């Protein structure tokens, strides 16, 4: 099972720690091309001695894509694959003739087998399955996809991505200097959310870790089990893999979302 665990890396040092625990699939969030993640700079990435998957998870403009092209040119020998949110990255990969796996990681998409197959048919090698669907839906997806896909099994769930710099805006409005990595609380439900901002936008996470490790029982058509290590220590990740965690399963895994008021059955 460990050979299929994929973790995102927050610092160069973490790689050694994970390797000692026999975890060898690494997702490297590229600085200036990600939101909601601790990233590695180009300079840090160039020091890595092991092949890796690269994460580019923000939506990009023309200038971003031009810059990305230069960066990929420099690190291309080490990249096994690229996880991308913006489909424009495909053209950059093609133009550079990069022999890398292309993995579509669009948060909140990947919710049905036919859409996933449609992307797989159009040049993608794999796709990350949504973690806002039920276990039954995931089971059906795995039974019907044409290539192996990636399941999200543990971590904080990204639930909103805005191009706006929401904390900076708040600081400007009220003349505060609040940290750009913070927690907000909804007034009535008292539900807490993590909020993280960088110059490229703001991402909100559910404050509760979701534990979908029961998905590890699914073997067929799984390329990786992804653990989003954002705000988690390496030892916590390793404990989670051994199921030594108090985190509860995602509410979505066992409860369908509804979309018409009339569908509410509670």
């Amino acid at each position, binding site marked *: 099972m460990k050979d299929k665990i994929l973790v995102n890396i927050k610092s160069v040092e973490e790689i050694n720690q994970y390797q000692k625990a026999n975890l060898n699939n690494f997702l490297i969030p590229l600085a200036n091309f990600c939101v909601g993640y601790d990233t590695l700079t180009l300079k840090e990435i160039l020091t890595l001695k092991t092949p890796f998957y690269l994460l580019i998870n923000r*939506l*990009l*403009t*023309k200038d*971003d*894509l031009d810059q990305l092209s230069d960066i990929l040119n420099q690190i291309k020998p080490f990249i096994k694959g690229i996880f991308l949110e*913006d489909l*424009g990255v*495909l*053209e*950059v990969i093609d133009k550079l003739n990069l022999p890398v796996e292309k993995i579509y990681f669009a*948060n*909140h*998409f990947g*919710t*049905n*087998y*036919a*859409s996933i*197959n*449609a992307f797989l*048919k*159009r040049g993608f090698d794999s796709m990350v399955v949504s973690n*806002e669907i039920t276990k039954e*839906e995931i089971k*059906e*997806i795995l039974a019907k996809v044409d290539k192996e896909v990636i399941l999200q099994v543990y971590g904080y*769930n990204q*639930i*909103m*991505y*805005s*191009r*706006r710099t*929401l904390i900076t*805006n*708040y600081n*400007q*409005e*009220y003349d505060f200097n*609040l940290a750009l990595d*913070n*927690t*907000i*609380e*909804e*007034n*009535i*439900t008292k*539900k807490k*959310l993590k909020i993280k901002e960088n110059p490229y936008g703001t991402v909100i996470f*559910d404050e509760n870790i979701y534990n979908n490790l029961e998905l590890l029982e699914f073997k067929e058509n799984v390329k990786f089990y992804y653990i989003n290590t954002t705000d988690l220590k390496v030892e916590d990740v390793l404990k989670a893999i051994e199921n030594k965690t108090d985190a509860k399963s995602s*509410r979505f895994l066992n*409860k369908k*979302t*509804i*979309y*018409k*008021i009339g569908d*509410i059955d509670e």
Partner: protein
Amino acid sequence: MNKVELLAPAGDLERLKFAFLYGADAVYIGGKEYSLRANAKNFTLEEIQEGVEYAHKLHKKVYVTVNIVFHNEDLKGLKEYLKKLAKIKVDAIIVSDLVVIDIIQKEKINLEVHLSTQASTLNASSAKFYLKQNVKRLVLAREASREDIIDIKEKTQADLEVFIHGAMCTSFSGKCVLSNCFTNRDANRGGCAQICRWIFAIEKGTKPFSIMPKDLNMVKYIEDMINIGVNSFKIEGRMRSIYYVSTILYVYRQIIDKIMNNTLTAAYVRYYQDILNRCANRESTPQFYDKLPTNKEQYFLDREEKSNQDFIGLVLDYDAKTKLATIEQRNYFKVGDELELFGPNKEPIPIKVHKIFDENMEEIEVARHPQMLVKLEVDGDVCQNDIVRLKVFDISSYL
């Protein structure tokens, strides 16, 4: 100058007809299934057919949203639904999920496809991915800047649709499941509970706030976007009222027509801005077109949404001889009030209320009951379905 399309939302058949009357070249509507406004009234297939036939008689167009992000169970019946839309001859469907395109290609269904703003297209490279799939039009992300739009147009020559007015999401469209987390209502299947409008607290000792954006308003950039080559100007709001949709359409129709015949002045732009802001009861700004939005483009706690009673009534009939308009009342008004009447292809007509008559031609002082029929003297070119509103702004004071 390029001919451009003014594209309006229509939540039901009545609003579809008003949208066309008030200057829309095309409308977008949702069916009972697969549409991102699950709680709007929406259209049955029979109503879609009626709307399409009505539009085509006017040489106008109807686009149908099939823009949810599908779950496995939603795929059931999708192919048949698409075939029915093709048979009805809708002018295009608006989609966000590649599965819809896949089915259309596989089944050779004769439907034009427009890519929804849910796909968050911000650059020419991602645009090309979808254009290769035979997508005929791209509805760009609301986050697209002027430079992004120019680059996409230059590199793809694609038919581009851009939002010009209405409510904004805080997030990129489709990139938010706050609603799912708080209420279990699926935002990407039309159930969004608008959590971004709720109130949050951050650290102790700080002020509570919302993360809600002000509305979008592109009045001052319409001419620029025509010159860039934007093909379709889209107004948000399938759940909005007839008064709202008619007012917004009236203003943008006037602006586009005045640009085309070179008569749009700065005074008119200021006047139209005031009308739009009052109609929505909310502030509105260009948002991402000219800069990255700051705190000025967002509501915190000082949101001003004072409801007004500007919508006085709808003209049901007009007797040119007596100059009496029969009006279905929508809000209180009385003798002495200053009103104005507006309608398609005409400048507003001022009305000073000297007398109000009820249905029996009895003189009354006040029209106080919603939907009561009253008669008012109006001097001018008055037509059925013209709208009477409180006169708040006077164009002469802007000139």
